[in-house]
């Protein structure tokens, strides 16, 4: 089975974010990056399916040159090769634009299965995978917690809300968006890191893929949210904070 996994590099989860000079994006100076967490689970699932059934895992990533860090990690964990759509300013593309970039790269690869995380930690649209499937004309299923091969296709466990699930059968090729927690993430081994250096990373550009055109969605302004609730901040050393909080819970909230 040839599996393509679409991954994205995002600011590290613990980053302190500030608004950049344009007012439309964050200040990326000194910001560390990491793989988008749901994509890490998608990558792991792809590797596990390949390890069970054989085949190949191709990591696909659109992003600036610095995204090669995330691509190298994917290769070190076991992806066989990678495709990097190198684009310094991915913000030139709106959500459908990014999906068109990925779709063009997918068409050249003709995978049996495409996996990606259910949403990104930066934009959080939760749409790229579904749009990609529609552009490619293949079926999809979202928020997947288990993947099994059947005779002619796959059987996947889709998470519904409030603790409900559902099994769905799909023909191949198909696209799945993977839920965090579907598997246990592996670490890259020393051997894996060494091997990654020799693995192929094919670089493509938006121009080569023939993707451009006007945007339909404009991010006009990025800003810190207005605090809806007046939060009483409990100050002091940890011991004082603890004593004050217990006092509040006992006397004001009357919960103790």
């Amino acid at each position: 089975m040839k599996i393509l996994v679409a991954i994205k590099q995002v600011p590290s989860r613990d980053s302190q974010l500030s608004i950049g000079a344009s007012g439309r994006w964050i200040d990326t100076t000194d910001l560390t990056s990491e793989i988008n967490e749901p994509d890490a689970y998608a990558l792991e699932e792809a590797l596990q399916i390949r390890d069970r059934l054989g085949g190949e895992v191709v990591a696909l990533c659109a992003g600036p040159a610095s995204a090669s860090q995330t691509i190298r990690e994917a290769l070190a964990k076991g992806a066989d090769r990678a495709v990097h759509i190198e684009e310094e300013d991915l913000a030139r593309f709106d959500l459908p634009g990014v999906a068109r970039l990925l779709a063009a790269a997918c068409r050249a690869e003709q995978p049996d299965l495409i996996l990606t995380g259910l949403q990104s930690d930066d934009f959080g649209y939760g749409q790229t995978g579904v749009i990609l499937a529609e552009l490619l004309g293949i079926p999809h299923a979202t928020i997947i917690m288990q993947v099994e091969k059947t005779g002619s296709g796959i059987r996947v466990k889709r998470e519904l809300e409030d603790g409900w699930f559902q099994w769905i059968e799909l023909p191949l090729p198909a696209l799945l968006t993977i839920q965090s927690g579907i598997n246990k993430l592996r670490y890259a081994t020393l051997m894996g890191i060494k091997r990654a250096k020799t693995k192929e990373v094919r670089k493509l550009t938006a121009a080569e893929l023939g993707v451009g055109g006007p945007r339909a969605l404009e991010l006009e302004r990025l800003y810190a949210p207005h605090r809806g609730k007046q939060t009483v901040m409990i100050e002091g050393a940890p011991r004082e904070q603890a004593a004050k909080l217990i006092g509040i819970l006992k006397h004001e909230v009357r919960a103790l």
Partner: protein
Amino acid sequence: MSTLVIFERGRAMSWEAVAAGQQLGGPVSAAVIGGEGGLAGKKLDRVFKIRHPLLDRYTADGYTAAFEQLIEKLRPSLVLMPHTYQVRDFAPKLATRLGRVLVSDVIRIARSGERTVFVRQMFQGKLNADYVVTDSPPWFASLQAGAWRADQVEAGTAPVEIFEPVIAEGAIRARPGEPFRESERAVDLTAADFIVSVGRGIKERENIALVEELARALGAELAASRPICDNGWLPMERQVGSSGQTVSPKVYLAVGISGAIQHLVGMKGSKTVVAINKDANAPIFEVADYGVVGDLFEVVPALIEEAKKVR
């Protein structure tokens, strides 16, 4: 501006989308697959009951085909939907099919004259962003749970029409099974008065015991955010959030939980929210009544000690 609300039956969030549509002004219609679900008694232009045997069980292919045909017929300027898992599954496909873009997980819609701004959260709720759609209508937006109020839906009477889309058997590629629950829940968090909930900030499995001890000292039920259950550090049945349980206890004490929206929708109905987090900018403080910025590994042991004194 004419609005079409795609109503998902059995979901309170669908009423929030109806309220959002009504508050924008202009004629609002609603479309629902299956029975009209109470829409006929609301102030709506028209209600469309969509009927087709291939829509009995949800599939992205079936729903996309049905709504595509209805939207082509009605040509609304705006299509609103609740941001449910089902909508997340088909709405991006529907918008793409119609050559449009969906603005997903919207928390506010601001209109002034011809200008419409969609506000959505970014970076796990740490920042907000204003979006405008530069495409021609119809525009598509899915609305975040709790961003509008279901109890503000205006009552009235609405004519109900049947809409029968044309769907070919072969157009539906997925074969969906019956929805099921993994196991009956042994832990009913919804009944708890006091919940102590733990998140990523706890760092290691071994440290869960610390929060467990705090819950015991406070006489509280122990819960967790998704990553903790994903890691298997606590069972899934203790998870609070969109994929877990929705709780509204008297006190919700969040320990090391940053407050991603998926978690907040499961607990923001709590009467009093207390948050302990090392990051003063964590979104959890947006919904907290009381906040403690500090190292949980220092604050929690001190809390346990203080709690033991008073209980």
